[in-house]
């Protein structure tokens, strides 16, 4: 594969996979800059070993796994920093809504984020890949290197745990 062909193939992969991995990374880290850095690092790793993947799917699942791992690593470091400096996390701003609705929405988002933070990585990762990455159970299994039935159980357990942490009726849903 010459340089031109390699770059074209890489660009094709980037356009296909980036929209998935940036969402996954963002919803793990809750920080867009950090998510971009994570994706950048993962794609450069992919470019350096592009020839070692036999197909697009192999590269895609490998990349998702790398992004997932880098994102959770970042989150771990951030948690340490937060404990040390009591830093206030980035909260997205809401410009469309006003007043009570805005407050309710903000409160709901905070509660959901807090609940998601309490999930262990083995439950949170498949749920995020399902909800934000839009991957099916088979794809999640390939990305996380676990069986499809294991994905099914983990997603169910993640939802069950969230259901307990977010009692229906207490959380505002837009």
């Amino acid at each position: 594969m010459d340089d031109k062909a390699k770059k074209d193939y890489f660009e094709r992969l980037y356009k296909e996979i980036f929209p998935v991995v940036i969402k996954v990374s963002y919803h793990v880290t809750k920080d867009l800059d950090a998510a971009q850095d994570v994706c950048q690092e993962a794609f450069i790793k992919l470019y350096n070993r592009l020839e070692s993947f036999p197909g697009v799917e192999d590269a895609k699942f490998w990349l998702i796994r790398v992004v997932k791992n880098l994102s959770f690593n970042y989150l771990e470091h951030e948690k340490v920093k937060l404990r040390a400096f009591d830093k206030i996390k980035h909260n997205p701003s809401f410009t469309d809504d006003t007043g009570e609705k805005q407050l309710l929405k903000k409160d709901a988002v905070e509660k959901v984020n807090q609940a998601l933070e309490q999930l262990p990585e083995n439950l949170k990762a498949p749920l995020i890949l399902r909800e934000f990455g839009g991957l099916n159970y088979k794809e999640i299994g390939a990305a996380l290197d676990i069986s499809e039935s294991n994905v099914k159980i983990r997603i169910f357990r993640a939802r069950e745990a969230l259901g307990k942490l977010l009692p229906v009726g207490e959380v505002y849903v837009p």
Partner: protein
Amino acid sequence: MCPDVEILSSYYDDELEDSQKQLVKTHVDSCPHCQKKMAELGLISASIHAEEEPDFQMAQMNTWNKIMDIVDQKEHKLPKVNFWQRRFQISFPAAAALVAAFVAVLSFSVITFYMGKHTTSSPSSPELNMTDASGAMMDDMFDDNAIKFDIPAINTIINAEEPLLIREVDFMNRDGKH
């Protein structure tokens, strides 16, 4: 009998096989309990998606540009140069210090060499010590026209042929009294 919530979760994600999916659908349509469970799953999913998402398209463009910068930089970097072909930069004070050190070492070596030569060149006078040698060298090195003082060498040994040590016993009698 109601299906397990795990099955309902898979049904919610549309991950059941067609035959199983039809059975679950028929049951849920007629079961208020399972309908409530399905509504709860929907609420959990909706609450997860309640947060507004940032502009991912802009992020995609920015990240692509950064990646390409890094890739291009790597591909266009200078070829590897051998150690002996490399250029080194050294600051002026460091260079001056190195030159000064070199000159000092060189001067010391010359002086030492010269001293050694002068000493070995006069084997007929073994009494000549380092002070004499350096004195001669100083004479040669500095000023040939300067007034020189010849200090006579003391080479006469006065021998009185008498013992220098007078033993106490010589002043004593045989019985040991003075």
